[in-house]
C-alpha cells in the first residue's frame, strides 16, 4: 500500500473553494487534494484518510464555517496524534484577534493567510509548510525534490547521515 500525503481544504463558499483548488493544481499529482465544506465533513474526511493509512500533510482551513468554526477543527487536530504533525494554515478574512490567538496557542497554527490571497503567496506557503512536513516526517525525501523546496530538502539529506551502499 502506497502511503499518500493529503492536502485538505475546508471552505464553505463554493467560489473560494474553486479558486483554492485551481491555485493548488500543480501539487495535486504529488499531494492529493481533498475538500470539505464544514467541520463535521472535514472530520469524516480526516477519519477516512487516516483509516486508509495515509497522512494529512497540510490543512488549509477557513475560520467562519456553518456549525463549528475552523479554529475548533484545528485545535481538535492538534489534540489527535495522527494529525498533530499536520501543517495547519488558516485562510480567512474574518477571524478576530482572539480566534487567531487561540489558533496559534492551542492549534500550533503554522501560517495565517488573509483573504484575498495572491497565487504566488499561497504556493510559497504551501511549498514551505509541506517541505517542513516531509523533512520532519518522511524517511525518503527524494520524491518531493521536484515539487517542494529542493534546496532545503538537499540540505536535510546532507544532515541525514546518508551512506553509499
Amino acid at each position: 500500500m502506497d502511503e499518500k500525503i493529503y492536502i485538505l481544504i475546508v471552505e464553505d463558499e463554493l467560489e473560494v473553494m474553486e479558486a483554492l483548488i485551481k491555485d493548488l493544481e500543480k501539487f495535486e499529482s504529488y499531494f492529493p487534494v481533498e475538500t470539505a465544506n464544514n467541520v463535521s465533513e472535514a472530520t469524516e474526511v480526516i477519519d477516512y484518510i487516516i483509516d486508509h493509512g495515509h497522512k494529512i500533510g497540510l490543512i488549509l482551513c477557513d475560520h467562519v464555517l456553518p456549525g463549528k468554526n475552523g479554529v475548533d477543527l484545528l485545535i481538535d487536530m492538534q489534540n489527535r496524534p495522527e494529525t498533530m504533525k499536520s501543517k495547519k494554515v488558516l485562510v480567512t478574512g474574518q477571524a478576530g484577534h482572539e480566534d487567531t490567538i487561540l489558533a496559534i496557542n492551542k492549534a500550533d497554527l503554522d501560517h495565517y493567510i488573509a483573504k484575498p490571497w495572491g497565487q504566488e503567496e499561497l504556493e510559497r506557503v504551501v511549498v514551505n509548510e509541506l517541505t517542513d512536513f516531509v523533512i520532519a516526517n518522511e524517511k525518503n525525501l527524494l520524491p518531493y525534490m521536484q515539487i517542494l523546496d529542493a534546496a532545503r530538502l538537499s540540505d536535510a539529506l546532507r544532515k541525514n547521515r546518508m551512506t553509499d551502499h
Partner: protein
Amino acid sequence: MKVFSKQSVSILLGIIGFMIPFFLNISGLSEAGHVALSIFFIAAIFWMLEPVPIYATSILVILLQVFFLSKQGVLFPEITADYNPNPYTDFIGTLANPIIILFLGGFVLADAAVKYDLDKNLTRLLLKPFGSKPKFIILGLMAVTAVLSAFMSNTATTAMMMTVILPIIAKTDLDDPLRIGLALSIPFAANIGGIATPIGTPPNAVVIGALSTQGINIAFTEWMILAAPLVMLVLIASWLILLWMFKPKSGSLSMDMKGAFQKNSSAILVYFVFGATVLLWITESFHGIGSSIIALIPVAALALTGILDKDGIRQLPWEVLWLVAGGISLGISMESTGLAEWIITSIEWSAFSTLFMIIAFSLVAIVMSNFLSNTVSATLLIPLAVSLAKSGVAGEGFSLILISLVIGVSASMAMMLPISTPPNAIAMSTGTLKTKHMTRAGLVIGLFGLLMVTLYALFYWPLILN
C-alpha cells in the same frame, strides 16, 4: 503481505537456494563446502533481490556461519579431514576488522564536518578560483565533489553539492543543456571521487577487508597512490564527455555562495581534528602508524569533547559496518571450506589470458553494480577473485591485489541508471534530467573507465605493487 509479492517470492527463492546444496551431492566439494554454498546462495539471492535490507542479510550471514560453520556451532565441533572449522570469533570478529574501524573514523569525521558546515565552507573556498565560465565552473564543482567524496560518503557529498548547484540551475534557461551537464557532473564526480581513498566508499572497504584476511595490508597512502591517478584521469575525461554531450549555451554564471567558517571553539577543534587525521592518514608511509589506528583518534577526540555526543554515536551508519562485516565474514568461510576454490577450479582458467580476465572481472563488476549496490557487487565477486589468485590457476601477472583492485574500482564506475548509486538517485530526483541523459553519459564514462582500469591493471598497478 500478498502471497506473490516480490518480497515473499524473493524470500522463498532464498530459502530454496539455501536448501539446494543439502539435496545435491557435489563431488569434490567438502561437507562444510556444501554448507558454505547454502549460505552463499541465500546471501546472494537476498542481497540481489533485497526482500530484507542489505545489512539484515549480512547479519543473517554471520548468524548462519556462527551456527553452522564455526567450531562452536552445531555441525562441525571437531576438525575433520577436509575442514578445520574457524572459531566463531573469526566470523563475528569481522565487525572489528581494521577496515571497519577505519570506516568508523571516517563516519565520525564526516559527521562532525557536516555538523559544523565544514563541507559547505570548504566548497565555497575551493570553488572561488574556478571563475564564472560554465565549463570551468563544472570542472570546479567536479573537482570539489571528488575531493570531498574521497573523505565523506558520496551520497552526503552529492546532497550537499545539490544545494550549491540548484540555485544555478534555477537561473539557467530551460533549453540550456548546461542544466543537464551540471546535474550529472555532481553524482558522477562523487562516484568517481569515492575511489580515491580507502574510506571513500564501501566497495573499497570490501576490497581492503578481503585482502587483510589474506594477510595483505594496504596502507592509506598506498591505496591513494594506486587509485588517485586513475580518479583524476577518469574525472577529467568525464568533464570533457559532459561538456561534449551537453554543450553549455550560457556565457557566464554567477555563483553567490554565502557563509563563513564557524569560529567557535568546537568548530575550530573539528577543523583541527579533521586536518590532523587526514594529514596522518596520507603520511602513513613516514610515521608507519596504521590508518585504522589513526582512525580512533577522531573518534576519541570528538567523543571526549562532547562533539560526538550520545545521539551522534547512536546515529552513525552502523548498517554499513554490518554490511561490510558480513561480506568479509562470508569470504572467510568460502575460503576455509574450500568452496571458493571449488568454484574456481571448475572453470578452465588457464585457457584465458590475464588481459581477458582483467576485462572480464571489470566488466562483470560494472554491469552488476549498475543494477545492484556497489558494495554487494564487490562483496560477491571478491571471494572468487581471491581464490582465483591464490589457486595459481590464473597464471602469472594475475596478482591478488591487482584483481581485487580491478573489482573494487570497477564497482564504482557504474553510473548508468538512477538506481546504480544513491548519488545518481539524488540527481534524478531534481527533475532536471531524464534517465536517457544519465544512461548515455554513464555508458560512455563506464566504457572509458573499463578501458582505463584495464590499462592501469596491465601497466601502472604492477609497477607500483612490485
